[in-house]
């Protein structure tokens, strides 16, 4: 008797999960796998394209913000001119009892001051609006895209990395946007205006100044190359830290019970130290840039002064021009620090955006159809629909075949139980029906319509799966049930809970259905969570209900209650039940025994139990286990 049915329940059941792993590089810490390296490939240019696509819709607003900043700078620079005017014209006029110029200075200064303030206010708010809207869009894109990606993607990517993408990586773009625009405009303004002034003052000095941009450019290029490496390493390192952190906090019970604190401390310290080093490296790149660029700038200044001084000595350059040029020279290189800061935030953001672009470049391998079709209208009032597996074969991309081609027809309204040993393909069958995966060959049809042609909304009106892991989201119990149908009224929610026998325990919670599952008194046992998950599925009112080991944590009365409820719940519904507890199987009209991806027994429960096949043996063992 080899038939064991302990496969499971998880959409990524063992067969899937592990066969998938096979291609991974050998050794316990595989390398080379882009997932392990946290380095999903992004197509070339994707990073810039992403940045551009985020900023393009804002270009009008960016222009307005830039204009505000330029005008503001002009207002600020008017001060010295007014001082000169006050001293040159205001004083003599005042002595002649002509107060006009002085009043003009007073009014002008007041206007400039207030204007600078108002423009400052306007610019900060405009810039913040651009910044926040870009971040909002980016966060939304990451989230939406991640949600559209398939389950096997998430199993490999882990929640920690996704958190890292949508928090720390988004944060670096935020830094770029909040200071970048200001820096960049300032830098460009200064460079251009001063270079022009210098060229105008003296072509030779201006030319040297312009020439000095060549080593500066090389310096910038080198910095960018090095910084890009450093920032990528940093982003990868912090993601690893987050993964470890999140996993530890989510599994705090076993961590404490198995005294993992110390070894976790050590493992975390290793990751944290790696991040610390990467972080330090990234900061030091900036220090290198500052030294290098300052050296170039200061050498150039010394060179230009020397050259100018000789020209003056030769008599080919006016002393006043040299004096003015020398005064401007210093200011020529003032913006290089700010350029450095801009590059710093740019490289940091670019490293993060590359990672985000890599995530966004992942294509969902269970895509929604471009032109969805609707399910045909139902014949009667009942929601049930017919399910057909038409020549369905399923293999992982890496080769391992889980289901050889098989055909199966489940008539509308019937309940089918699937049993079989580990790796028999039960879960795969369930996942194909729930469209967590698409078949390699063949079609899964719901009332004659290929699942791949249905929109998500239509698909979920058609098929809903309840799994063993009854995850509860933050929020109230009612909200958790309402995931089944977000527009459900409180009556409908309570009705679903009552139907499955969950109402009593929910009503006994401190705030009943409004109890926050994370707040005081919100502790809900595993069995109770399964009941909530059931209520959720009932509320969704699907045509086809898949129960993948959905009652494992219930006690016997609870399971009984669910089974009683199933009588009414499954009435007029097509159901596929995967269960180890054969009591659940008894409600089925038909039992399928699977082995190695094939259906080896198929019949009514009583018929199979009466026979001598695998199911009869299983059933006997189970009966014995109940004594």
């Amino acid at each position, binding site marked *: 008797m080899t038939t064991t049915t302990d496969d499971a329940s998880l959409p990524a059941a063992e067969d899937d999960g592990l066969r998938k792993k096979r291609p991974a590089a050998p050794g316990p810490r595989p390398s080379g796998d882009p997932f392990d390296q946290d380095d999903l490939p992004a197509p070339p240019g994707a990073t810039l394209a992403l940045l551009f696509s985020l900023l393009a819709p804002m270009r009008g607003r960016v222009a307005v913000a830039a204009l505000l900043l330029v005008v503001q700078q002009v207002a600020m620079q008017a001060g010295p001119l007014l001082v000169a005017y006050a001293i040159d014209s205001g004083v003599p006029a005042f002595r002649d009892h002509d107060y006009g110029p002085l009043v003009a200075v007073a009014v002008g200064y007041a206007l400039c001051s207030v204007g600078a303030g108002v423009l400052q206010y306007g610019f900060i708010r405009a810039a913040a609006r651009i910044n926040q809207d870009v971040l909002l869009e980016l966060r939304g894109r990451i989230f939406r895209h991640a949600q559209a990606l398939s389950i096997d993607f998430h199993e490999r990517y882990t929640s920690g990395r996704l958190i890292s993408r949508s928090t720390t990586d988004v944060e670096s773009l935020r830094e770029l946007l909040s200071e970048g625009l200001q820096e960049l405009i300032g830098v460009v303004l200064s460079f251009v205006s001063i270079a022009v002034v210098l060229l105008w003052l003296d072509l030779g000095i201006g030319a040297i100044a312009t020439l000095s941009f060549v080593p500066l450019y090389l310096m910038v290029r080198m910095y960018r190359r090095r910084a890009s490496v450093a920032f990528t390493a940093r982003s990868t390192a912090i993601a690893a830290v987050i993964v470890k952190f999140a996993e530890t906090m*989510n599994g705090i019970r076993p961590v404490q*019970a198995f*005294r993992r604190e110390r070894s976790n401390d050590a493992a975390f310290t290793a990751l944290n130290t790696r991040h610390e080093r990467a972080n330090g490296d990234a900061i030091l790149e900036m220090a*290198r840039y500052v030294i290098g660029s300052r050296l170039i700038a200061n050498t150039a200044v010394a060179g230009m002064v020397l050259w100018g001084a000789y020209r003056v000595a030769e008599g080919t350059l006016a002393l006043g021009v040299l004096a003015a040029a020398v005064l401007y020279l210093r200011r020529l290189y003032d913006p290089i620090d700010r350029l450095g800061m801009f590059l710093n935030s740019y490289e940091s953001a670019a490293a993060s955006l590359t990672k985000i672009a890599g995530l966004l470049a992942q294509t969902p391998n269970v895509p929604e159809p471009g032109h969805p079709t609707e399910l045909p209208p139902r014949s009667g009032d009942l929601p049930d629909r017919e399910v057909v597996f038409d020549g369905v074969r399923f293999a992982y991309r890496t080769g391992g075949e889980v289901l050889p081609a098989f055909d199966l027809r489940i008539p509308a309204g019937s309940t089918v139980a699937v049993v079989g040993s580990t790796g028999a393909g039960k879960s795969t069958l369930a996942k194909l029906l729930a469209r967590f995966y698409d078949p390699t060959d063949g079609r899964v049809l719901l009332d004659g319509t290929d699942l791949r042609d249905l929109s998500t909304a239509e698909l979920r009106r058609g098929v809903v799966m309840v799994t063993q892991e009854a995850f509860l989201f933050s929020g109230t119990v009612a909200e958790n049930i309402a995931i089944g149908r977000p527009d459900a009224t409180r009556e409908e929610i309570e009705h679903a809970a009552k139907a499955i026998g969950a109402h009593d325990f929910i009503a006994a919670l401190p705030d009943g259905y409004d109890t926050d599952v994370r707040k005081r008194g919100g502790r809900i046992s595993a069995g109770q969570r399964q009941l909530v998950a059931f209520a959720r599925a009932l509320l969704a009112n699907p045509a086809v209900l898949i129960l993948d080991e959905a009652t494992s944590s219930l006690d016997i009365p609870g399971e*009984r209650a669910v089974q009683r409820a199933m009588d009414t719940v499954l009435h007029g519904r097509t159901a596929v039940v995967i269960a180890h507890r054969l009591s659940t199987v008894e409600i089925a009209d038909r039992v399928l025994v699977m082995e190695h991806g094939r259906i080896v027994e198929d019949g009514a429960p009583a018929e199979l139990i009466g026979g001598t096949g695998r199911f009869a043996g299983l059933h006997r063992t189970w009966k014995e286990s109940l004594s």
Partner: protein
Amino acid sequence: MPKMPAERTDRSAVRSLLRLWPYVRPVRVRLFTAAFVAILASCLGLVIPLVLKWMVDGPVADRDPGGVWLGALYLLLLGIAEALLFGFRRWLVARPLAGVEAAMRADLFRHLQRLPVAFHDRWASGQLLSRGTTDLMLLRMFLAFPLTFLVVNTATILVGFVLLFAQDWTLGLVLLAPAVPLIILCSLFETKYSVVARRAQDQVGDLTTVVEESVLGIRIVKGFGRHRSQARAFKAMAHRLRDTELGKARLLAGIWALITAIPELAIGAALVLGTIQVADGTLSAGTLVAFLSTALALRWPVESIGFLLAMSQESATATDRYFEVMDVAEERGAAAVREGAPATAPGMVFEGVAFRYPDAAPDSPPVLSGIDLHIRPGETLALVGGTGSGKTTLTALVPRLHEVTGGRITLDGEDIATMERSRLRELVSVAFEEPTLFSATVGENVTMGAADADEAQVRRALSVAQADFVHELPQGLDTEVGEQGLSLSGGQRQRLALARAVVGEPRFLVLDDPLSALDVHTETLVEAALRQVLARTTAVVVAHRPSTVMLADRVALLSGGRIAAVGTHQELLRDNAEYAWLMSGAESGPAPGRKFPAAPTSAPVQQVPAEEGSAR
């Protein structure tokens, strides 16, 4: 979304930031040196124009080539010194501050791991995570720039004002006049800004939680086709964060505008007054120019105060958020041995144990009360009770994941409250109902139960748990399991968790419904193997089914947080209606021979006794 608002009792940014001192202390020398170097470099920057002026006025004007060379050399040397100092400042603090960030993160992680489970029940890990990442990054940046420049700029402003007063004290007073309203405005701003900054940081934490849950609950989201509504919910939240951030920007824009405009107005006033004084002949034009250029030079340091304050404020709230978690007391260690407490029998003894969750409303009934149980050495006790009767809570008390609030639990006569947790948890091994694995290899997950377990022990444990599927995995024991082990099936995870619990051959074993996800066949095999393990340990097994109960020598029925009955399976089946109901699902007591409503699968069912519970 859970929010953990800080208790806002007269908090000041400075007091919050001062709490960073223990972390800054180790790097204080470098930090102060860096600040000093920053000042030095700024001064050098001021000297360079002087050299330029000297060159223009001296050697160049005098057509003195030697002097020009010398001047250029000076310029070059000063330039090199300036560049090196700037770089030196950054080099000084780069690694130490990365170190401060890392140290704070490591401490947070260390601390959180040692906080009671009750704390983690309340705190979404996203909130904890945002404290460990974005908040700490903010603090590092604060230490690197705003802190230094707050000091440097304040010093510059003070020195500047001394110079201004030295030049002309009446005009100096005019410039100083706006200081009072500005200080008042700044403090108003700080109060408002700290509230918004805190809200924004909390919202980042909430957002983190949603992202995390969207992955952990991806099967539900997908299974119900809810990814759009999930994305809408996320968007609504991200929108709230955006609005808060825009509120922050509005406040910042306001204060910055005032900080820009008001001092400018004062300079304008000084200019007009000065011009009049010059016209009256009471002030020289040169002094006025010098005065105003000093005032203009102070413009940047004054303006920068706006965002420096804002960053300080954000850092202060980040510090608050960090210490809010760090201040939660770690679990008590071992209590002192109570003198005079009567010795108890060997084995596992519960004496009048009561438990109430620390955050429960004071008037709510305790989850457990008056629990008296004695599990003799080598004995196995099954714990049976309805859904939500407190079974799992009771098992959590033994390894002190929760602390009893009344009575005591002793192991071989020793009160667990007086034991070091690590020693206690070495004695007691647990298999949880939800078999959480970690993203490590299968082998590492199993040996978690006993770090020093050798290969033979691991193999034995795996075979007890019928987890031989491990050997067929691509890399055997070295195969990585995914996040939370979710790449394995529920049954596989449960078997690995069981192997983990038994690998160290612990003296005491606590198993919470350890076979729920196993199929009948595997369950039978596991039971047979487990029986041998249980024969050598003292164990509590939470059971939902007769088959699991059969592992135990005796059964305790938990009902409404109390032990309702203790006895053998047969005794309780016979004498206790509730127990019979729990074990069979029948509506009333197990009257032997009574027929239950016939199941559709008629014939075979009727061959088994009714209480064995297969009938519908």
